[in-house]
């Protein structure tokens, strides 16, 4: 497919974010002018897609809700197809500041060995929005475990404010976790000898709409991610390598 004029893409996964997606896109147009903006409407039942298109973003509408992993992976596929050098991911709920993309971009461009740069709310000295204590505890537990596994300090493994280079885009276009993907993605990078760094950012409380992580789902989140980490550790490769058996195949047998 044709290479794009710009080499920078920002992907905004949005599920029923009609109330905040316009602001997010306006802010991206204002503070991250070099980036093309694409909104992945993850099967919203509200006016998310219309609002995003009206705000001047490219919109991909998924026919039904795939969950955050499937939505973001659609972004990776788009970035890969259109030959973008860097792809950023910014939540559609207004948690992340568009102006801080520049800091992420600066870091990843300064060090060509870096494949992903991740905004961390815990590295910043300014105290922005703090998640409830229960969620923070969960995040810190995963941060502790991941830091031990990958051998570098990871402070905010659940952050969805990330910037990927071509190698990371290629990896995640091939395989990306289904639900609650952020923590596992860090492990996948590590397993494929890709490097990441964290950059301090400020995060806001979500603008409008509902978080995908309700209280009832927090337990599932913890168990699922723990299991994924444990199993991920025991895999030789966390993703399907070229010439491996297809991940979806009729001939698979245990």
């Amino acid at each position, binding site marked *: 497919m044709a290479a794009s004029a710009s080499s920078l893409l920002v992907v905004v996964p949005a599920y029923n974010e009609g109330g905040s997606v316009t602001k997010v896109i306006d802010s991206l147009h204002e503070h991250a002018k070099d980036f093309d903006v694409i909104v992945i409407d993850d099967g919203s039942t509200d006016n998310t897609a219309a609002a995003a298109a009206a705000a001047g973003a490219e919109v991909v509408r998924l*026919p039904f809700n795939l969950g955050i992993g499937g939505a973001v992976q659609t972004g990776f596929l788009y970035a890969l197809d259109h030959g973008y050098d860097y792809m950023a991911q910014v939540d559609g709920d207004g948690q992340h500041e568009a102006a801080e993309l520049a800091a992420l971009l600066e870091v990843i461009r300064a060090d060509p060995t870096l494949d992903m740069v991740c905004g961390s709310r815990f590295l910043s000295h300014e105290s922005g929005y703090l998640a409830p204590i229960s969620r923070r505890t969960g995040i810190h537990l995963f941060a502790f475990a991941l830091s031990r596994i990958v051998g570098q300090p990871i402070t905010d493994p659940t952050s969805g404010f990330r910037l990927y280079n071509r190698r990371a885009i290629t990896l995640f276009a091939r395989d990306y976790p*289904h639900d609650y993907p952020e923590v596992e993605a860090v492990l996948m990078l590590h397993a494929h000898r890709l490097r990441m760094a964290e950059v301090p950012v400020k995060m806001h409380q979500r603008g409008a709409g509902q978080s995908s992580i309700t209280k009832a789902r927090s337990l*599932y989140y913890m168990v*699922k991610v723990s*299991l*994924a980490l444990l199993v991920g550790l025991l*895999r030789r490769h966390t993703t*399907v390598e070229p010439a491996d058996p297809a*991940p979806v195949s009729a001939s698979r047998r*245990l």
Partner: protein
Amino acid sequence: MHFGAQLAAIAFALIVLLLVFEMVRRRYLHERYAILWLGAALLLLVLAAWTQLLSTISSAVGISTPSNAFFVIAFAFLLLLLLHFSAVVSRLADETRVLAQRLALLERDQRGWDTEAGADTRPLPIEQDARTGDTARERVRPR
């Protein structure tokens, strides 16, 4: 519960645990569904290993032999799992329907059958695959 039966139950639960784990590792099973099976296997493991708990439960609900209580609990859990899978299959069916509809509409838009003069409305020929016996409809473009 008889000691032999207890050992067999423990061994079975352990095998299920390992099998589920290996299936996740080989990516035959998503974590989402593995969690349910791991939960079921752990429950059976606890019940099989902790005889005191099992006999407490069985006497509480009036089952004279603890091993029967074990079966009842295992059966109830399996029923719930089956119900859950029925719900999952329903969701998958809905998703497939939406995909088929979207694809059909897309195909129609791409081929422009409605605008092309003399659009072929005859039923599509059905061809049989000689090797597999599968039938596949082959699209014939209108001339």
